[in-house]
Structure formats: C-alpha cells, structure tokens
C-alpha cells in the first residue's frame, strides 16, 4: 500500500470517526449504514471491473445469497448470526466459483449477458421456491446480530460494525492490489495475451477475484438481512446489480477509491433529492447523465484531471520564474 493510499485511508477513518459526533440524528447514521453495505459490494466490483477488467451484472445474486443464507439459517435452522454469516460466505464462494468457471471464459457483452442471466435466474428462484424463501412475500423475524454482550440494534452500533468491516475489506483489497496477485490481475486488464506469456494463470486469477467480490457481496447481504430483519426478492433484482455497477463507473474504475466516491454520491443522492418529490427520478437520471458525459473517467478521473491541471500550472509558473 503506497503512501497515497495510507493518507486516503487515514482521512476516511478520521471522517468516519468524527461523523457521528457531528451528525447526531440516527437517520443520517442510518443512511451511512446503507452506504457502508453498498461500499462492501462496490469495492469488490471495482476489483473485478477496474482491475481484472471483467464486468458483472449479476452481483445482486451474491448479495441475495448472503442475505437469504443468513436469514434462512438463523430463522429456520437455529444458527446464531455469526456462524450463519460465515456459512453464507462459504456458500456464496462455492456458488461464485461454480458459476465463474464457465462464465468468465466469455468476454465483453457476452460476459455481461451471462452474469445478468445468472442474476435473473437467482431472482426467479427466490420468487418461485416459496417453501424455502417465502416467495415474493419474503420473510421476516430475522434475529439481530449479537457480538459478545452487544446487540447490534441501534443505528450507531450498525454504523460501527459495517464501517469497521468496510475498512478491513478496504485494507485487504488495497494490500491485494499492490501485491503479486494484484499485479497479475491488473496485467489481465492491460493485455491478457502478455499476462499469459508472463506465467499469469489468467483464468485462475479471474475466478479468484470473482469469488472474492462475491464474498464481499455476501457479507453485505448477511448484514442487510440482520439489520433490516426482513428480506424479499425485490431488493435483489437486476436494478440492484445495475445500481452497484453504476456506482463503480460513476466514481471511476481506475481505483477502489473511485468505487467509494461513487457509492457515497449515488447513496446520498436519493436522500438529497427527497425535496424534489416526484421529480427525483428525473433529477437522478439527469445528474447521472451529466457526470458520465462530462467526466467519462468517473469522478476520480475528474479529481486526477484537476490535479494534473494544477501541476501543469505550477510547472508553467516555475518555468516562467526560471
């Protein structure tokens, strides 16, 4: 992890610690909890999309696997939430592995379609297997998480839990990016042919990062199930998969920080747009369009560009002086 990443991480952690001191209202904390959940998924997706160059329009399925596994195990099989959380991770990893093997052989739009199709199939199964999943009505009474003597029920305790996990996942991912495996992943994005010639087993690494991103989504799903205590298929449809991909692209695919920026923006936007009433859907679409038209590299790209311009200006100034 470079110095730049350390500084960014420090700023993020600092901000997260200070935030509850200034924002006392549990409503804002609640919004931040959901942004945290989304962040878990988008960090994984940015590894998959930005670093390994593979798209997925089916991540709602892994979010769902996490949520439903946790929900079903705790309500019907008598599991405690924490063991259920890890069982869900294991199951999601297996599903992602099995799906990843044939799917990741595909490229471009074919890969997009295959992941989309997988996500839809999972969505249909959630709806159709009523005995198991409760069908379209979903099911509730999912217990809350108990960590030692602390029951994760208040917004602030959820905030602490989810953002601690986000920070851990972030450190884990940043370490990964700047390692042997991470470089191998990025090399796939650069040139799969050359990566192969350098001894990189591209299919293995693609599957690894696909599984990893699925695990992140599963974590988010489990937490979602225990936080909201009710789940139904409508939370895990194609729109969700598209939303998380959009968050990554809007923020910028070139780094995980972009994913976080995008998640913050698109997570907050609907709350900010509450004042627009019915028009929020129009404003939302419009903002999205503007961002993509004017900063096609995402917001992180914009920040880099501004920095670049700044540097150029200072270089020019120096040149003039000398």
């Amino acid at each position, binding site marked *: 992890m470079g110095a730049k990443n350390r500084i960014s991480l420090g700023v993020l952690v600092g901000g997260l610690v200070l935030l509850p001191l200034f924002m006392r209202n549990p409503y804002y904390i609640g919004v931040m909890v959901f942004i945290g959940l989304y962040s878990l998924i988008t960090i994984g997706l940015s590894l998959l999309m930005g670093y390994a160059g593979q798209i997925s329009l089916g991540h709602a399925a892994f979010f769902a696997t996490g949520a439903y596994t946790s929900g079903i195990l705790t309500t019907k099989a008598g599991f405690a939430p924490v063991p259920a959380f890890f069982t869900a991770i294991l199951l999601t990893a297996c599903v992602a592995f099995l799906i990843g093997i044939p799917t990741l052989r595909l490229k471009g739009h074919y890969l997009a379609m295959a992941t989309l199709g997988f996500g839809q*199939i999972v969505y249909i199964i959630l709806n159709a297997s009523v005995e198991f999943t409760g069908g379209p009505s979903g099911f509730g009474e999912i217990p809350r998480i108990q960590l030692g003597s602390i029951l994760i029920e208040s917004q602030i305790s959820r905030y602490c839990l989810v953002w601690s996990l986000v920070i851990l996942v972030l450190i884990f991912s940043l370490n990964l990016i700047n390692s042997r495996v991470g470089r191998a992943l990025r090399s796939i994005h650069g040139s799969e042919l050359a990566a192969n010639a350098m001894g990189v087993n591209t299919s293995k690494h693609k599957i690894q990062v696909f599984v990893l991103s699925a695990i992140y989504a599963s974590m988010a799903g489990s937490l979602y199930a225990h936080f909201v205590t009710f789940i139904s298929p409508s939370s895990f449809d194609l729109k969700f998969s598209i939303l998380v991909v959009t968050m990554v692209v809007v923020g910028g695919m070139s780094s995980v920080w972009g994913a976080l920026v995008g998640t913050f923006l698109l997570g907050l936007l609907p709350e900010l747009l509450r004042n627009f009433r019915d028009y929020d859907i129009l404003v939302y679409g419009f903002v999205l369009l503007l961002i993509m038209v004017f900063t096609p590299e995402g917001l992180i790209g914009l920040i880099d560009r501004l920095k670049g311009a700044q540097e150029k200006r200072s270089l020019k100034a120096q040149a003039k002086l000398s």
Partner: protein
Amino acid sequence: MGGSGILQLIFSGITIGSIYGLVAVGFDIIYNCTGIINFAQGEFVMLGGMIMISLVGAADLPMWISFPIAVFAVTLIGALFERLCIHPLKKPSILTLIIITIAASILFKGGAMFAWGKQTFSLPHFSSERPISIFGATILPQTVWILGFIAVVVLLLAFFFKATMVGKAMRACAANRSAASLVGVNVKEIVLLSFALSAAIGAVAGIIIAPIALMDYERGMILGLKGFSAAVLGGLGNPVGAVVAGFLIGIVEALCAGLLSSHYKDAVALIVLLAVLFIRPSGLFGSLEASRLKKF
C-alpha cells in the same frame, strides 16, 4: 396436451418472440456501429407504444396516421439522444457509454411517467379482435399484423443494408470503423443514423405489441432485457440471428410455461441462453473473431 395445444403454444411463442427479435435488431444496429449496448432500447419500445396510444386515444387520430407520427417522434428522440449525450464525447470507454444509456433510460422512463402518469393503457387492435382458428389453435388478427410488420421491417432493413449507399456505409462501419472513415464514410453521421434507426424499430415494436400486451411507463425494462437476450443469443451484431433467437426464446418460454411450469419459464429461457453461451461463447450466429475484437 394434444397437437393443437402445442401449436397454440408455438403461436404464443412466435408472437412474443417476434417482439423480442425486433427489439434485438435495434440493439444490433447500434452495437454494430458503436460497440454500445443501448440499455435505453426498451424505452424506445415503451415510448413508441405510449405515443401511439396518446395519438389514437387522446388526439383521436386514425391508426394509419398515428403510426408514422409515433415512429417519427421516437426516431427524433433517438437522434436527439445521440446528438446530446453520445456525440459530444471524445474517446469514451464502452462501459461509460453503457452507463450513459442507463441514465438515459431512467430519464426517458421518468419523462414518460410525467407525460402519461402511472396508469396502464391499452391500444385498440389494428383490426377485429375475433380469434382466427388454425388447425385447432387460435390466434388473434393482431398476431398476423405483428408477423407482417416484422417481415416488412426485416425486408426493408435487408434492402437498406444491401442496396443503398447509406446502408452500405453502415455495414462498412460495422466491419471496421477506421477503415470506413478512411474511405470517406462519415462515421459520426452513421452513429447518429444508427440511433435513429434503432429508435424507429423499437417504436414499431412498441406500437404493434401494445394492443395485446398493454403499455405503461415501466414496460420498457423487461422488453429491453428480453431483446438483449435475443441479441446475444443470436450473436451480437447479427440482425438475422437476432430475429431467429427472438423466436427461439419466445417459443422456449411458451413451451415451458405450457408444458412444465410457469413459475420457472423465464429461468428456463435464461438457462438455455447461458448453455448456448457456454458452448458457443459468441452466440448462435456470431463469429468468435468479432467477439474478440469488441471488448470493453
């Protein structure tokens, strides 16, 4: 279920499958010229249907006048969308363009919600609603209309691409953009044209399906999704493959709903699609070379 029952299911599959195919052709035209999957394609279908319903219902115009007006209006929307949102970009990534089309689909949907409200509308059938009996199965006259329009659209497109200068230029663009621009094809114009043409085809699909499927501002998404499936199954960029794949998906869905279980009919169609992709990673009629060339 007897033979006539199966025939009935196949008719049902062909009706809906032809719409999937038509939407898929729209995907293909834009894909060929730009490499973009236009996620707003389904909204063109919805807009076509809704505008037609307004013209026929509220403005009380006869069908044969409303039809071209509705198609023209959507074509204009498609062209405007390209000019305002796609045209100004310099060297954007394919993924960026895709997100732009998603944003546009949100905007179109929102606009339609304000223009027409949230209710579901129906359009009168083009001719009588009395079912026609064929070998014991029944079809609506509207189905005949739909199949007729598909045939006309496909023939017109074939003529356009094979025999007209502009059509040939579009095909040149699809084969190799830089080479096309070298021989004097104005690639930017062609991209504009591809959006307009796709929008027009989407509008036709929306108008002809509206009498039997009803229409509301949310309809575009699901039709777009099915159309995308058909486009991929047929091999992206291959309009003939798209139509065939559309029929295939429609028939698989209908047979599954009629013979196995309606609960899983959409899933079965998707599983067939995935199986095809796993065996032939570039769809039924796509070339592997093309799928290699165009990636994100």
